């Protein structure tokens, strides 16, 4: 697919062990759930006890009632009693399992979704500069894939880790108490089991990394062929492309074989080690059973040994899986905390005050600005100084990169200038709350971004408290009411992701309506260049005239008519205002603007 998708996959492959710092911050998240955590830990301990009790009961039955039977009636009573205990223990185990699952998952899911909300809230507070330098997909991943990765480990994994370690220790201690000799002999399988598991896990992890890398290449190829399918077919490239795909797929399959080969060696090896364990119990344990008293081991103990030895394997295997998950969760946790630690650049000053209702007079006083990514020796805006009276239309003209967009971004306080001040009605916007400024600001950009939801929801976006009547009135005013009513469900028509179900012209008209509904005092307009048919073009033109009327408007102009009507034109070159005036005065002056205008006009 795109570069984005590619490195997202790469990112998903990152791994990092949990360190103390991460653990401490994660532990801090359990605040509010400590009681549940305690209940979960307690429940888990009881559950493990119940599980370890099973083989013990079988052993007791065999040792006390099923071998060396002196009185069948007493033995039968004993067996019945043991079966009853076993049944009771099963009931207990069931109840504890239900409780354990519920508490573990409740803690994990709640905690992680608290964190998810925290991440989302933090993202809202971050300044645009963060979004400029960070790939969208990465930011999305923080609140999505990274949280999911941790969710898995923290809900189930933490619990499992506890269960596994206790099971291993518990089983070992019980076996030790039955016969320390047999226990020690049987335990020789443990080191190869554990070492082998971690050895194989590392190999498998690396192999899977390779598989996923190849898999992402396959996906990219597939995606490219789908999005370019019209070209593929137009050029009759199907067979060549299939050949290339199969070549790539061949590599993928090789990597998949590699991974599978490791896995399919690990599993039988595990079975073999387990077999050796049981064989040791049979052989050495059998010999011990025939020995005199001190070394002797009862038949029930022997049976219990066989059952307990097998309890080693499940947990060790799970531990291997868990180990991988914990590593990727570690990397995720670090990325999430990094995001949470990123300070927003544009924040309200401590003594910030809300702007009153403004008339819309705007003044830039010797403003200098550069982005974080701009080299230190360059200004994107260099000593920009101008004033716009309330209600004026200011057209910003210049080539790409001349600083037009930066001026409006500063006015919207998406960024803050390094030098100089920006005043609205005489108030320095740096001293005002961001919210009070944005509430009085309307922006129509080239993106024409719409959200999923209904048309009505979208139109109300800038002023959620607007009534249906307010919205319709605004639509009638800009002439889009008819257009909207002609849609399938009128104002209730669903908007697909990014407004994909509407034409570019319609999207732009909806955005203009949205801006009018918000009743901004200052309007920022980035005229679109995309091709729309002449009917929409005319509608857009008249809608804009209505929107602009009586508001201070800053417009990045692409239409000559807009420029001609502007009260003031600022001509920008390399971040400096090189000419200013009206269309007439600038054309007459014969400078930069006159040249640009000639270029405009030559063309239909």
């Amino acid at each position: 697919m795109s570069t984005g998708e590619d490195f997202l996959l790469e990112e998903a492959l990152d791994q990092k062990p949990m360190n103390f710092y991460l653990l401490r911050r994660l532990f801090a998240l359990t605040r509010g759930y400590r009681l549940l955590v305690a209940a979960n830990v307690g429940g888990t301990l009881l559950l493990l006890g119940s599980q370890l009790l099973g083989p013990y009961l079988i052993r007791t039955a065999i040792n006390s009632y099923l071998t060396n039977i002196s009185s069948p009636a007493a033995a039968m009573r004993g067996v019945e009693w043991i079966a009853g205990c076993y049944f009771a223990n099963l009931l207990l185990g069931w109840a504890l399992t239900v409780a354990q699952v519920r508490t573990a998952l409740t803690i994990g899911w709640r905690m992680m979704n608290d964190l998810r909300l925290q991440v989302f809230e933090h993202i809202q507070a971050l300044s645009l500069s963060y979004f400029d330098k960070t790939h969208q997909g990465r930011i999305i991943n923080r609140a999505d894939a990274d949280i999911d990765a941790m969710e898995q480990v923290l809900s189930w994994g933490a619990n499992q880790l506890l269960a596994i370690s206790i099971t291993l220790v518990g089983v070992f201690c019980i076996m030790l108490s039955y016969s320390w000799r047999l226990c020690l002999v049987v335990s020789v399988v443990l080191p190869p089991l554990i070492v082998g598991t971690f050895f194989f896990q590392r190999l498998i992890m690396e192999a899977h990394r390779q598989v996923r890398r190849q898999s992402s290449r396959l996906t990219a190829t597939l995606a490219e062929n789908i999005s370019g399918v019209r070209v593929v077919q137009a050029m009759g490239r199907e067979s060549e492309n299939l050949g290339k795909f199969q070549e790539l797929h061949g590599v993928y399959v090789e990597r998949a074989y590699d991974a599978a080969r490791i896995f399919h060696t690990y599993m039988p090896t595990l079975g073999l080690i387990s077999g050796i364990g049981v064989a040791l119990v049979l052989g050495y344990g059998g010999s011990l059973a025939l020995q005199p008293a001190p070394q002797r081991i009862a038949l029930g103990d022997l049976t219990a040994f066989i059952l307990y030895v097998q309890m080693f394997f499940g947990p060790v295997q799970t531990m291997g899986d868990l180990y991988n998950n914990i590593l990727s969760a570690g990397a995720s946790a670090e990325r999430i905390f990094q995001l949470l630690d990123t300070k927003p650049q544009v924040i309200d000053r401590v003594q910030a005050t809300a702007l009153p209702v403004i008339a819309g007079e705007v003044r830039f006083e010797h403003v200098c600005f550069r982005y974080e990514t701009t080299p230190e020796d360059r200004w994107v805006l260099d000593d920009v100084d101008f004033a716009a009276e309330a209600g004026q239309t200011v057209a910003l003209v210049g080539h790409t990169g001349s600083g037009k967009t930066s001026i409006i971004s500063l006015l919207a306080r998406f960024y803050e200038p390094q030098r100089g001040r920006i005043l609205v009605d005489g108030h320095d916007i740096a001293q005002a709350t961001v919210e009070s400024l944005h509430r009085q600001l309307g922006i129509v950009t080239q993106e024409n971004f719409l959200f999923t939801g209904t048309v009505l929801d979208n139109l109300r976006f800038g002023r959620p408290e607007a009534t249906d009547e307010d919205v319709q009135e605004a639509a009638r005013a800009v002439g889009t009411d008819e257009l909207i009513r002609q849609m399938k469900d009128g104002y209730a028509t669903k908007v697909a992701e990014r407004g994909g179900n509407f034409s570019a012209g319609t999207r732009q008209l909806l955005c203009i309506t949205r801006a009018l509904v918000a009743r901004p005092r200052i309007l920022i307009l980035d005229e679109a260049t995309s091709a729309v048919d002449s009917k929409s073009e005319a509608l857009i033109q008249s809608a804009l005239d209505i929107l602009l009327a009586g508001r201070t408007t800053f417009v990045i102009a692409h239409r000559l008519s807009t420029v001609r009507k502007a009260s003031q034109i600022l001509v920008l070159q390399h971040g400096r205002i090189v000419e200013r005036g009206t269309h007439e005065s600038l054309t007459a002056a014969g400078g930069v603007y006159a040249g640009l205008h000639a270029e405009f006009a030559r063309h239909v």
Partner: protein
Amino acid sequence: MNAPASPAPAFRARNLLGVLAFLMRYRGSVALAIVLLLVNIGLEMTLPQVSGAAINNLQKALTHQAAFTPWQFAEVFIALAVARAAVGLVLGRVRNRLVQATLKDIRAAYFDAVQRLSFAYHDKTNTGELISRGTADISRLQEFLFACLFLGIDITFAVVITMVMITITNWKVGVAAMLTLAPTMGLIAFFARQLYPRWRKVHDLHGEMTTVIQENIAGVRVVKAFAREGDEIAKFRRHRDVFVRTTLATVSSWANRVPFTQFIFNLSTPLTLWIGGRAVIAGAMPVGSLAKIVFYLLGLGNRMGAIGQFVNVLQNASASSERVMEVLEDPLKIPSGSRRLSTVGGAVVVFDKVSFAYPGGGREVLHEVSLEAKAGQTIAVVGATGAGKSTLVHLIPRFYDPTAGAIRIDGFDARELDLVELRRSVGMIFQETVLFSASVTENIAYGRPDATPAQVIAAARAAHAHEFITEMERGYDTVVGERGVSLSGGQKQRLAIARAFLLDPRILILDDATSSLDAKTERLIQEDMRRVCLGRTAFVIAHRLTTVQHAEQVIVLKEGRIVEQGTFAELARGGGLFCELFREQLADREGGRA
């Protein structure tokens, strides 16, 4: 505990059989894998016999002082374990090769099908959907193949053999075990089906929550501009709350059901102790046999979880296979003819009362369109958005077939022609030029992969692309496309022109090729567009009428019909729709639209 990820419509066996047909290409391997699996299960099933026998013999030795050499049993046990590991080692490899080979076939079939799907299909299906079918859905089929080859057989045989072994040892215990096993298996399958839609719901809600995040970040400027951060957080919180609530409710119903099945199954152990214990005390069964039954039950207990998994895999695979097979069996496929065209000179293209409606779309987009393009002519197609211009030209390379009437090229019905040949003799330049993530050379030679570097450079020169290509650091080897250097609109269109020069098609279609360019670039590139049309039959769609002044014929479309037809000069004077459009644009020029 993982949520099944796909929407699951009704269970349909037909599609799954279609997937199994791919597997059946490797009958030999399938048979081998199944035999090895059976041997493996058989070996596993003898292990409790050995342990049980060892304990029995040991007890005999203890009570009757009979001779007993414990290490003998240990040796047999180890021998069996080694044999099992060896079989498992081979089985794993055989099975994996088999599954990978099958998947390779499925993926290749899918890739090929997607490439060849008709435009009608691509129109109604979005890219993401097709990608996810080719990745996520096929991965689910992988699970399905493993499940068919392994899980299903493993569970069936393990259950049957275990039950037989227990019953042979003591039929009463056997009956008791079956009485717990049957409801357990039934419940697991039932619960899995019951829980499946709930997990799907959780998955869907997760998707919705992700959409909120994605939209919020993609639309961050709008959010900030309208100071809606607080509302966005509230919206996200609502989605999150529903997600968490639903997830926890689902977890809760999972916890109410699945551990219960485990509990029911585990009842077989106290029952065995009770019934088997009675038999042991009565002297009807040695104690080792009781232990043996417990070992068997242990082995079966480990498999119970797999039943639920198997049901989920089947449900997932049912949905996934439907989505994959639908692509493989696309009903809208365009069949190829066999007739070959000559390869030189402009072609004569005739539309004979061509009507067209998009499949399922109802309304006719083109109605009885007739026209004749003589060899080497340039035909301009004009009209408002939605008049049918693009549809008209897309019928020539048979991206769609007309619903009525016929298109004849050099006198032959296009449907009789070899499809690949036909498409290679039609060149197209679209509004947006798609570049593939490959070198400039490969992109220019996309339609003619056998072209020599010299030919590629010549084409680039002709398109005035050579200059900017050589200015790039790696020149013709520069990787462009989504994963490479991004080019400007004008540069991309120049590469498209170079492609067309190199392809040297007999028919060339410029589908709105310059409308996304800015005015200056459009003017610069216009001349090259005109040159590449020379000597070919060209169809040019353009918004700006001045760009088609040189056309021999102008066709004006309105609502799918040709309303005017003639030369540029004739129509401009004619006072009809064309004249009106032309005036409008001239007026715009006065008004100044950049």
